């Protein structure tokens, strides 16, 4: 679960990491007061759970009330890569001497956490990897041993730091590993980590992704609960018009891909794997609340999940909904015979053997339906 920048910084501050003086504002009326308290010039940073904020224009400056109010109005109406901006973090403008990239994350290939430092901060780590690959230093962590300030001393010395800055950076790094561990994070990142002209070491941005199964998320329970409502089926809405209902995460992703491969536009991700297969009625009920669908592809490969039980649920849902959008079925695996029989008896539909064939058919039928509707 990704945290907002202001939440990440609140954690940093709790652990004694220096952050810019700032306030969270959620209307453009109050922006002037907050900005004055902090002192102009200020930075206005859109709070949204998405990357690419800088390029999307989500960071703006203001030297007086007029600029602050104008920019706040713009930011609060913005959408950054699909995520609505709910609030603005108003912060002091910092006197930057040097920008550093610092993060701790899980390295899947090495199967352990890795600390990544670059003395060329401020850009995306991938941009740094392209433009200054030699500036990227990594140190892998033995989790039973931890990552301590003396490990960080070594790392930051290799990155070229000395003296009091070295001491401050290494303490901050050890603190960040403490946050990574205690909050059970997947990622903690400070980019840029700024050294100011008067020697402060400041977390000017902060990104924290917590493990949804970990202890750290409990502090953000309200946020989780809000997500969970539509997360029952791990539903992710997309912009297409072909509804997807399949079992298992991998098969569902592939179902979307095959629809796209044959020229269609998938409308969603939705997983009904594991025990959830018994909830196919609720899943389709939920999917049919969308009025932009021009077709639905049901792709079932039964193992533990019984395809006949899934089809029964789908039939119950269809009975409740008065819909004429086309449905295409593909059924294989456990319960296949009975599932096919149910589809034939109730919908007079022959289920496909192959996903490729089913995908071609739904793409064609959705195209027809869209034309008819227009």
């Amino acid at each position, binding site marked *: 679960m990704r945290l907002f920048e202001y939440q990440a910084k609140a954690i940093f501050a709790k652990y004694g990491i220096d952050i810019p003086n700032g306030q969270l504002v959620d209307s453009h009326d109050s922006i002037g007061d907050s900005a004055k308290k902090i002192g102009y010039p200020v930075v206005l940073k859109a709070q949204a759970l998405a990357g690419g904020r800088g390029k999307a224009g989500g960071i703006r400056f203001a030297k007086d009330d007029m600029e602050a109010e104008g920019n706040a109005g713009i930011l609060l109406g913005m959408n950054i890569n699909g995520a609505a901006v709910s609030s603005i973090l108003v912060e002091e403008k910092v006197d930057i001497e040097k920008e550093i990239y610092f993060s701790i994350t899980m390295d899947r290939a090495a199967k352990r956490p890795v600390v990544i430092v670059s003395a060329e901060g401020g850009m995306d780590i991938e941009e740094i990897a392209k433009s200054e690959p030699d500036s990227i230093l990594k140190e892998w962590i033995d989790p039973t041993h931890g990552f301590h300030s003396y490990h960080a001393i070594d790392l930051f010395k290799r990155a070229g730091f000395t003296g009091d800055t070295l001491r401050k950076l290494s303490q901050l790094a050890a603190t960040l590993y403490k946050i990574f561990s205690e909050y059970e994070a997947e990622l903690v990142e400070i980019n840029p980590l700024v050294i100011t002209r008067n020697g402060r070491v400041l977390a000017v941005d902060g990104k924290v992704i917590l493990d949804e*199964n970990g202890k750290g998320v409990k502090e953000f329970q309200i946020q989780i609960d809000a997500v969970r409502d539509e997360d029952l089926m791990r539903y*992710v809405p997309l912009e297409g018009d072909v509804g997807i209902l399949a079992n*298992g*995460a*991998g098969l569902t992703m592939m179902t979307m891909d095959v629809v796209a491969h044959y020229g269609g536009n998938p409308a969603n991700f939705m997983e009904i794997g594991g025990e959830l297969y018994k909830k196919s009625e609720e899943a389709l009920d939920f999917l049919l609340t969308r009025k932009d669908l021009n077709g639905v592809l049901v792709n079932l*490969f039964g193992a533990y999940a019984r395809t006949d039980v899934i089809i029964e649920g789908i039939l119950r849902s269809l009975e409740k909904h008065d819909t004429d959008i086309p449905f295409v079925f593909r059924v*294989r695996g456990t319960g296949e015979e009975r599932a096919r029989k149910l589809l034939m008896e109730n919908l007079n539909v022959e289920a496909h053997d192959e996903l490729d064939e089913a995908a071609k058919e739904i793409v064609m039928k959705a195209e027809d339906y869209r034309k008819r509707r227009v």
Partner: protein
Amino acid sequence: MLLSKNKKVLVQGITGKEAQYWVEKMNDYGTDIQAGVAPGKGGQSILGIPVYDSVKEAVEQHDIDTTLMFVAPSLVETATMEAIDGGIKEIVILADGVPVHDIMRMLSYGAKNGVRIIGPNTPGLVYPGFSSIGIMPSWLPHVFQPGEIGVVSRSGSLGNEASYQVVQAGFGISHFIGIGGDLLVGTTTVEVLEEFERNDDIKGVVLIGELGGNMEEQAARFVKTMSKPVVALIAGKSSPIGVSMGHAGAIVEGTEGSVESKQKILADNGAHIANTPMEIGKLLKILV
């Protein structure tokens, strides 16, 4: 050992409802389930399989090659340490939802003790015609037939689909290895490929990946050195960026871990890319 087809199996958490369902399926398939563990249920038996209070007691009475864990996510770390301390050298972890910091510690402890961990969030292992360790529908004849193709998959459901395509194309499966969909897993794609390359039963390889992480990228570098043809199907091309797609590990940040980059690196290193499941069969017919 990962590819050995007749392992002696221990089942941790054997008395749970889901465990009993699958133990019966595995048993019927011919898997050599030696014993089970359930604290406080020592002395009972399930389908004639003796149950012990602890791994320690089970390994005193039985030679165990691998342990299969039907254990709640929050208890997986302890159960894994128990298995490692009991001297078991291979551990298969099914649970979905194990905290990633638990996994990190488990993997570290396993590595220090020379233990192979498969998963978490793996659907398990199938050795068609021999045995099945996990929750794959090994009994479905149009999905699993003995043969000469090694399949490695991050996903269970897409693993079924791929195996089915292999069988539809007239081939059989020598080994199906599910590695699991979590952010950190004990056995990575490249480690399975290394085993596949060494195994003489295997004539061709199907690699099922998905968006997120760098396991396929790492695997690609090894594919270059392999003598056997590799067909790769990577799911998630039409998934959005920055959102977790069901599997905790299936998330793309920026351009790292995108399906396009994975397909490109794999193809550049000599793998054959299937864009849809049916293409797996078509490519195998040409290559094997």
